[in-house]
């Protein structure tokens, strides 16, 4: 972990959990795996304090632990969790948007408590005396004030169940407290040795064992039910079946299916039935925690929608948001699909989760502004050729004249168009990879749209929404993939995230470069990323800048590490006169560089908060005195109130800035 990232993690822990924990965390980060005696040595704290601090860190899952066979326990920093502290506000907001105010409050409390048993959570909510108003905690403004006061255990259960089904919280097991390496070792212990698998060759055995280990790790990572409970279900299931077949059936169903968020979601038909069928109660012994992966998925969807809004328009972005929301339940991890399907492989693309047009139409039926987003132009007045690249236009004209000679009507014309379109796609996105026939069909919409129009005249929104979806599919970024209607299957859409993420990253990098070095620098970078390694002279002619201006931009970019220079000597003497200098833009390097810079500026922001906070420390302390709270007007002077207001504003601003930087980090690292 880089210096700035670890600095940032320590600052975050310090900001939220205080000096004691951050001191311990810092030492663990710096020194690596440590046992408690070593920690005592390095921190210079008393054993009692170290143990308490470690306990707090463990409760919040900020450290991993592992007890070896010799009964020595070592602790290791969980930097992902520590970094994710910065997203706490976003998590609460997302939960509120998705599942309502109370869900947000529950998420907030889970963040506060670390992990917690369902039973304890329900009890904690249930214990409030009914007649007393909720005690605000000094902060008051957003916490629980507007929460309806009739929080019953049942409603808590239902909310928790919703959260679990949406994947925002997940079950915890021991493996979440172990680092990846330890998990791998533990999985190796559980899975039988290679000789157990009875294959022909040793290599096949090894491979099968490797698969089994990966499967075990997967099971641990996305736990469905606590392990001992599974055994219990089996045992109890037998007994119950003897006593009361019906009851055991429902209980089994409930237990087995409830936590299986993915399975439930993937069989969309049964999900609703299940929800009605069960009583709305979760097992009290389940232990819940925040599921960071899922929140990352939702954040990715948000930034994709923002990208669609920027590159197309607001209304289309809304449609896109709906598509992504439909797919959300089927994506549990941002990194999951990367590398899995090979490009150009039809079936692999089909294996991605899909959503049908009807679902989207059903969800968006009542939006009114969909149709207005498109201008209505009479089809006869549209000249598609005008929007073509000049070269293409010329070529098309030539082919048209040939067509006229041939007088062959629609068929050959359609082919021509297909070919042309695929050419253009290849030009636009060099990394484009959709199989040719699919693209052709996606592009060739007029006939199919008239077909559907004829078929389903009862829903006027359908065509508008289809247009929006096609627009998304045709965009060079390829927000969507289109699976046209077949005799068996309805029309479907899917999102292939990997190339889309590359576009998003590139877009973000370019935006940063633009704001730092100007538009021309961004143009040069884009040229370089498109052309690969380019000689200065060529670059000069490509970028339409004079050499002197171009050099000033290139130097600035080079200095900042955004682009690189390669020297290729033409002979052995390595004479600078006889050396080629090639500029190139390595997106991975640029990304890494930008990521470190972002960490750095986040850390600096937090340090600035500390410094500014120290300046008004005495006033803040006074304002937080128990006799002053609630009577600020009386006890605080005008200047003090002004200082407090300013400080609050400043803190908001800085944390808002940190949240923005975090969005960038998410794009470059997590998605």
């Amino acid at each position, binding site marked *: 972990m880089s210096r700035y990232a670890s600095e940032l993690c320590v600052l975050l822990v310090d900001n939220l959990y205080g000096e004691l924990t951050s001191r311990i965390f810092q030492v663990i980060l710096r020194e690596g795996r440590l046992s408690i005696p070593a920690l005592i040595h390095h921190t210079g704290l008393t054993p009692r304090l170290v143990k*308490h601090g470690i306990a707090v860190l463990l409760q919040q899952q900020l450290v991993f632990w592992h007890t070896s066979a010799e009964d020595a326990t070592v602790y290791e920093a969980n930097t992902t969790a520590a970094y994710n502290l910065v997203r706490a506000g976003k998590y609460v907001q997302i939960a509120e948007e998705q599942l309502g105010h109370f869900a947000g409050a529950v998420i907030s409390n889970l963040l506060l*408590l670390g992990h917690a048993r369902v039973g304890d959570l329900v009890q904690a909510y249930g214990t409030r005396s009914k007649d007393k108003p909720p*005690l605000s905690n000094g902060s008051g403004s957003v916490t629980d004030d507007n929460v309806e006061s009739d929080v019953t255990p049942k409603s808590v259960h239902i909310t928790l169940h919703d959260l679990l089904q949406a994947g925002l919280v997940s079950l*915890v097991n021991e493996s979440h407290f172990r680092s990846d390496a330890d998990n791998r070792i533990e999985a190796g212990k559980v899975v039988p040795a290679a000789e157990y698998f009875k294959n022909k060759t040793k290599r096949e055995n090894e491979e099968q064992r490797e698969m089994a280990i990966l499967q075990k790790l997967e099971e641990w990572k996305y736990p469905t039910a606590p392990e001992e409970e599974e055994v219990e279900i089996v045992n109890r299931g037998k007994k119950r079946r003897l006593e009361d077949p019906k009851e055991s059936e429902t209980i089994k169903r409930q237990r087995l299916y409830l936590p299986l968020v993915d399975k439930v979601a993937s069989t969309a038909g049964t999900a609703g039935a299940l929800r009605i069928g069960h009583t709305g109660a979760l097992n009290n012994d389940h232990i819940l925690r925040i599921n960071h992966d899922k929140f990352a998925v939702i954040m990715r969807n948000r930034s994709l929608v923002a990208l669609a809004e920027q590159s197309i328009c607001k209304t289309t972005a809304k449609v896109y948001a709906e598509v992504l929301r439909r797919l959300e339940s089927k994506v549990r991890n941002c990194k999951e699909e990367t590398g899995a399907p090979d490009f150009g492989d039809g079936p692999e693309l089909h294996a991605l989760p899909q959503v049908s047009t009807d679902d989207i139409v059903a969800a968006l039926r009542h939006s009114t502004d969909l149709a207005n987003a498109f201008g209505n132009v009479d089809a006869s007045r549209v000249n598609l050729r005008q929007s073509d690249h000049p070269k293409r236009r010329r070529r098309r004209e030539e082919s048209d004249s040939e067509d006229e000679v041939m007088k062959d009507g629609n068929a050959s014309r359609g082919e021509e168009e297909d070919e042309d379109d695929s050419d253009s796609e290849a030009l636009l996105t060099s990394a484009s990879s959709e199989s040719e026939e699919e693209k052709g069909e996606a592009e060739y919409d007029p006939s199919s749209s008239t077909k559907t129009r004829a078929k389903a005249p009862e829903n006027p929104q359908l065509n508008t929404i289809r247009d929006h979806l096609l627009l998304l599919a045709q965009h060079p970024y390829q927000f969507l993939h289109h699976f046209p209607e077949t005799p068996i299957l309805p029309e479907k859409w899917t999102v292939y995230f990997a190339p889309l993420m590359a576009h998003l990253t590139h877009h973000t990098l370019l935006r940063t470069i633009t704001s730092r070095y100007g538009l021309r620098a961004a143009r040069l970078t884009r040229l370089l990323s498109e052309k690969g390694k380019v000689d200065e002279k060529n670059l000069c002619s490509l970028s339409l800048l004079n050499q002197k201006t171009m050099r000033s931009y290139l130097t600035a970019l080079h200095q900042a590490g955004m682009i690189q220079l390669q020297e290729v000597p033409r002979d052995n003497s390595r004479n600078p006169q006889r050396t080629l200098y090639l500029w190139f833009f390595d997106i991975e390097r640029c990304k890494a560089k930008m990521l470190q810079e972002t960490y750095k500026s986040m850390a600096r922001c937090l340090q600035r908060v500390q410094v500014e906070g120290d300046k008004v420390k005495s006033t803040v302390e006074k304002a937080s005195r128990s006799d*002053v709270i609630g009577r600020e007007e009386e006890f605080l002077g005008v200047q003090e109130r002004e200082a407090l207001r300013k400080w609050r504003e400043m803190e908001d601003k800085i944390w808002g800035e940190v949240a923005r930087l975090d969005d960038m980090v998410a794009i470059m690292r997590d998605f």
Partner: protein
Amino acid sequence: MAPASKPKGGSRVKKEGKGDLYRICGVDIPYDPELELDKPKPTPLFPEYKVPASKPLTASEKDQVARFRSLRESIHNGPLYAILGDNVRVGKPGNKAAASFNPFEGMSKYSQRYTKKRRTTPKLDTRPYVLKFFPKELWSILDPTATETNGVIGSGSKGKSLRIPGYEKMDDIDLEISGDEGEEKAKRNPEEDEPLEGEEVDDEFDDVDDGGDYNAEQYFDDGGDDAGDDYDGGGDDGGGGEYF
């Protein structure tokens, strides 16, 4: 050399072979007062720089920050937040308390009774824990009654419940208040915690006043705490025992 010093009536005399020379009142001066030294200007050390300003926060971002703040507030008010006490030595000794003492604001005041007291040790005995997620060496501080027999973890303290800000029972809050004072007391008597490896504890002993010397800085602190203890009737020796 300011150009203003250029003589008005100074006549220009040209010495052969040696370039231009100026003469003021008949005296030759060996330099050229008309020479503009500022041209070309040296690059400024700190050139004008437009500080990039970020856009103001949107409503959603403000909302986000507000949520973060309120969460942080409740963490800080919760039992797990702990600062480092003055008596903890870490790394290099910083400046001494006496050296950084502010004579105007540092004196103990009556109003300090009301200042928020920060914990120096996290208060772990307020809630139930899932002990299987913690290594055994920490069980003693999380739940002293915990035992493990044949892989089944048993705990003697069943009565604890989670507390969520805004959802406490009223007697819970009373308990917390007395509990806090109990903890402060515990801070002063570290021997009531489990015996630790000697020398570390000594530190704390050193810092504990035995109550003999007069110490102006702690005058009100002590008075306040004692008063609290008296009021409480000293019934909180048991610490966690009351959470039933």
